[in-house]
Every structure is written in C-alpha cells, then in structure tokens.
C-alpha cells in the first residue's frame, strides 16, 4: 500500500530537508520504491543534499503545467535502487502550484507503483505548506529542542490535525546530550510532555551532517555512523517495526569511549 509522508516543521532550518533526504534514501536502501519531492518552490535544496543537482532537466512545476511527463522529471539516484527525486522549480514561486495539483501528482506517483512518497515541505504555514500537506497520508514533524521551534511545531500539529491527517509523529533533531546532561537543553520527556505526540526518533547534533551535506551523500549511507543508525531506526519505525529509541548520553568519558567518538564511531554513547 503506497503512502505519502510529509516532513514539516513550521520553523525554518530545523532539519526538514536533511530528514527527507535520509528517510527517502533509507527507505530505498530497505528495498522500497521511493520518490522524494522537493516542495520548496523557488528555494530548492533537496537536490543538493541528495547530490543530484547536476542531473536536473525538468521540475515539479513543469510536470504540473504539462511541459513534460512525470516520468521524465524523475531523477533516479544511481547509488541506490528505487530512489528518485522530483526537484522543485528554482525560478518560479509557490503560487505556481495549487493543493489540487499536488494531490494529483501524488496519486499519479502511486499509480506508477511508488511505495513511499516523501515530501520535503518549505518553512512557514502559507501556500507551500498547504500544497505539501494536500496529498499527504501522514505527517512527520521535525523540531529541535528549542523554545521557538517547539512553539512552531505545536502550531503545525494543530494545522495538520485540522487537515484530518492522522496523528502526526515527532522527530527531535540536533539533540545535544552534553547540554541535556548539564540541564541546559530540554530532554525528550520535557518535549513530549509539551507536544504530546508520539516520538519517531532522536537525531543527535553531529558534524557528520555537515560533511554529508558537503558531499551530497546522505549520512544514512554510512554504516558506521551513529547519526546514520538513528535514521535507520526511524526508517524501520516508518516501515511499522517496533524499535527502541535510545537516549544519547555523554557521561562515558573513558579513554576508549573518547577514542571511538574521535574516530567518528559514536557521537555519544547510546543508552537504551
């Protein structure tokens, strides 16, 4: 059964595009047929995070306006079987797409035999957001452990529910165990108490995200990465598996633990 998942947040810059890229790639690595849609018209970025920017010929607006066929606009990722990107238009604005267009697009993709459609939603609650949720079957809300991001997430949860999407799920991104341990960052319980929606996963704040963005290669490809592992757990949860969500703890400061951290083998010790 095909499913369309929108990745949204309200506040900008909290990790929607990074999450979309890794979730889409991870699902494809699990053998699913996936299309990632960049719905950020005018400010496309998912192509760059996926490292597919040089292969764009057509975009989403051209598909909607009938300038090309849907299949022509899909860019197949050569690193993983089953993953394609539908890029956003770079020189158009959000008003060139209407919610009905997105609904049709998503239905057409489902008819092509896609298992998962992942929509990278733009920041904000206007046109781009409305377009992004129009064709979605469920929503994943990304937030960071900050007051402003959580406030916006709360607003978005209300809007998503008003659109009759089933209960949205939460991804807590840029989590810093050191700050949490010191009592200077809200922990998972604090945030869930406020937002009261199920948690899909926690992604630590980590330099590997910067490096993978530089290279255009999602971190979920890296089998040794803790961040990659965190995304792989989210992928399994999306697929319906029950997977424990470990906390990240930095208390372990032994020589071996610091060495492993320095080698990039762990971001921080995971504690279940």
């Amino acid at each position, binding site marked *: 059964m095909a499913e369309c998942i929108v990745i949204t947040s309200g506040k900008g810059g909290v990790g929607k595009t990074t999450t979309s890229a890794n979730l889409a790639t991870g699902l494809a690595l699990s053998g699913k047929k996936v299309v990632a849609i960049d719905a950020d018209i005018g400010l496309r970025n998912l192509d760059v995070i996926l490292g597919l920017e040089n*292969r764009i010929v057509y975009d989403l607006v051209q598909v909607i306006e009938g300038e090309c066929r849907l299949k022509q606009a899909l860019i197949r990722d050569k690193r993983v079987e089953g993953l394609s990107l539908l890029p956003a238009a770079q020189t158009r604005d959000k008003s060139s797409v209407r919610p009905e267009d997105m609904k049709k697009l998503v239905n057409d993709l489902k008819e092509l035999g896609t298992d998962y459609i992942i929509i990278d939603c733009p920041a904000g609650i206007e046109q781009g957001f409305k377009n992004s949720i129009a064709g979605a079957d469920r929503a994943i809300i990304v937030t960071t452990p900050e007051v402003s991001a959580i406030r916006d997430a709360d607003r978005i949860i209300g809007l998503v529910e008003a659109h009759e999407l089933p209960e949205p799920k939460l991804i807590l991104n840029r989590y810093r165990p050191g700050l949490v341990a010191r009592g200077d960052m809200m922990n998972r319980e604090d945030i869930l108490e406020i937002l009261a929606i199920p948690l899909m996963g926690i992604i630590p704040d980590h330099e590997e995200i910067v490096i993978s963005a530089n290279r255009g290669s999602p971190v979920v490809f*890296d089998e040794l990465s803790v961040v990659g592992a965190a995304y792989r757990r989210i992928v399994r949860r999306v697929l319906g598996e029950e997977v424990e969500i470990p906390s990240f703890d930095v208390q372990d400061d032994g020589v071996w633990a610091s060495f492993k951290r320095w080698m990039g083998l762990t971001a921080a010790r995971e504690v279940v």
Partner: protein
Amino acid sequence: MMTSLISRIQSVLGEPRRGSSKDEAKQRLKLLLIHDQVDLSPAQLQAMKAELLDVIARYVEIDREAMEIRLSKEGGQVALVSTMPVRRVTSRAAAAAS
C-alpha cells in the same frame, strides 16, 4: 561507506585526504551558482550540446567526443564557452559553398 573513518585514519597518518569535504562543497557550489544564474542545469546543457552537435554536423565534421561546452563566469558575466575540434568541412557544406 566508511568514508568518515578512513579520512580520519588518513589524517592521523598525515596522508593527504581524498579531497576534503569542504573542497567538494566549494566546487559543487560554484557550479551550482553559475547554473542557477542562467537557470540551465548541467543535464540541460548536455541536452543542448547534443542538439548543437546535430546542427553543426550538417556543415562541418567535428569530433563529437572532444567537443566541450560549459558555462563560465568572468567578471560577473556568465558566458557559454565551447570548443569544437573540426575534422573537415563536410561535402554538403562544400557543395553549398560552390
């Protein structure tokens, strides 16, 4: 897969890294910005190259493999730069000229 680990080991061994990720970022970005400015993707440029070759081949025989076309930026001006090594003028073009 093991890129982060390997690059870390290499940096310990004092070995020059297989291109640092920041250099890769800078190179990708430069290309991206030029293409953004003219709203023509590298893939579209390749499509244009194929069409150009077809037109030009009607007049001169050129080395298809050696033909190069790219966008370049000099002093704020984006230019389409192309080199097409000519083998010889085709007979049809010669006939038209005579």
